[in-house]
């Protein structure tokens, strides 16, 4: 089993990094940015060097230079800031006076909306696959208002399928860490309505470890 992973993604990666640190698992990388900045192009490839291009990211750029060169398996949350999508769709529902996307568009159009909104993330996963990297990904453990949870899950399902199609392996931490209301309180940071704690991060690493024998 590898003794190191390469972490990349939004702020939810922090919980995984903390879990890795606590258990002595080595890691490279870390969180790149808030998820919304990963919705637009955020990197370029120079030869085989991965270069973050986000404004203000200068100090952390070297941490990701080896993303394509490293042999450590990648664990990513890129693209799974689904709470933003859920909030955007819920706002649209309100303005249109509907309760579900199916009152406004077909399932295919909804799927296209989701994939378009995460086009940069999908390109990122395709790029990693083309570089021959072994990639695992997980959903950021969103805690959203209940009315947003349904569309969040629907969007996640579409995105999970699309990312899986690039060859990346999904680590589904939701069973056991979430219920119909979202992330269980014991896996959430205290005094933070959004983010998960290292306990959740450990679940992700356990799922990853279990896949090493596949």
């Amino acid at each position, binding site marked *: 089993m590898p003794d190191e992973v390469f972490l990349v993604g*939004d*702020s939810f990666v*922090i919980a995984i*990094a903390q879990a890795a640190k606590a258990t002595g698992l080595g890691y490279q990388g*870390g*969180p790149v*940015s*808030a*998820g*919304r900045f990963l919705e637009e192009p955020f990197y370029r490839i120079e030869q085989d060097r991965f270069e973050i291009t986000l404004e203000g990211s200068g*100090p*952390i750029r070297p941490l990701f230079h080896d993303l394509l060169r490293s042999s450590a398996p990648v664990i990513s949350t890129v693209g799974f*800031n689904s*709470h*933003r999508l859920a*909030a*955007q*769709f819920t*706002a*649209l529902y309100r303005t249109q006076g509907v309760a579900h996307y*199916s*009152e*406004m*568009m*077909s*399932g*295919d*159009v*909804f799927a*296209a*909306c*989701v994939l*378009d*909104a995460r*086009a940069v993330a999908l390109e990122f996963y395709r790029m990693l696959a083309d570089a021959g990297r072994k990639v695992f990904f997980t959903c950021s453990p969103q805690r959203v208002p209940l009315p947003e949870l349904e569309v969040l899950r629907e969007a996640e399902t579409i995105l999970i399928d699309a990312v899986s199609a690039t060859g990346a392996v999904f680590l589904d931490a939701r069973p056991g860490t979430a219920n119909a209301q979202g992330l269980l309180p014991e896996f959430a940071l205290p005094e*933070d309505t*959004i*983010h998960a704690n290292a306990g959740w991060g450990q679940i992700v690493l356990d799922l990853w470890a279990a896949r090493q024998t596949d």
Partner: protein
Amino acid sequence: MPPEKVHDNPYKTLSARNFWRTAIAESGPFGVFGIHRAKFRISQSDKIVTAGSCFAQNVGRALQNKGYHWFNAEPAPQFLSPENVRRFNYDVFSFRTGNIYSVALLRQWLEWAFGDLQQSDEVWFEDGRFFDPVRPVIEPNGFASRKEVFDARARTLAAIRSAVQQAQVFVFTLGQTETWVNNRTGLVYPMCPGTQKGKFDGGLHEMIDFSYMPIREDMMPVLELLRRENPAIKVLLTVSPVPLTATAKAEEHALVANTYTKSTLRAVAGDMANGHNFVDYFPSYELLTAPSFRGMFYAPNARTITKEGIDFVMKHFFKCFSHAEEIGPGQEANRSDSAADGELVCDEMILDFYNAG
């Protein structure tokens, strides 16, 4: 005996635009002037609805580019990329009907929308997907269920109602006389079943090459319905200059069939305009097909109208109908960023993570 004096006659008082030599032959293709005297003007604040054959798509686009209020009653979801907006046939016409080539099909859509006619429940099933026979390619892979077909159609019918009731101008481009129908139910199709989707059944699917009277008989109720729902609406008819892709009449040459189609449609459109003060006919067809233009606005396939042709027609269109000076294209719509605030906490967390070493 002195030579007989030329008597006064109606032609003596006519202007240069009335004579072929001065209006066309000597003016040259780009010197055509006064092609049409519009019955009404269109202001940039007027809501303009476009429907019809593919040429109407160009009209809608040109109106938008000139800053006119092309009324999109069934816009694409804001999250969809431009590529997918096209794939899913949004923003093509004012509502998502796809091409409406025939007057019979327009009548069917309108009567469904306003409850004058009960909708057909025919749905095509192919490779596990469901297709709407009145717009079989509106979604590239069809719909997931029969319910989705009718839900989507209900949205389009609602958009039609909204468009008709709010519009100041309804632009319709007549495209075809050859129309495929279901001879048992009377359902009018936009194209022959089996050509793109569906399965052709020779006993069920029949091509009717509508002549002048039946088209007129479809057009009259269309105009009545539009005015019933919106007494102030103006109707602007055009005939598509795009020739038929093919004729279904095996005995007939495509050119001959096309001439029949276009001349019949042109006659109906002209008579509707002559007979109603709220209906006008804009001669885009003539502007592209007259001998003096020598087919210069057609692509090498002798069918597609070039961008230059569209620009040429629309220049005349705006000259005829516009009130005001042209303005530039409209501002792009603002995209929602309502969820951004919720992520401020993420930025702080990331800074903390790296600060902690």
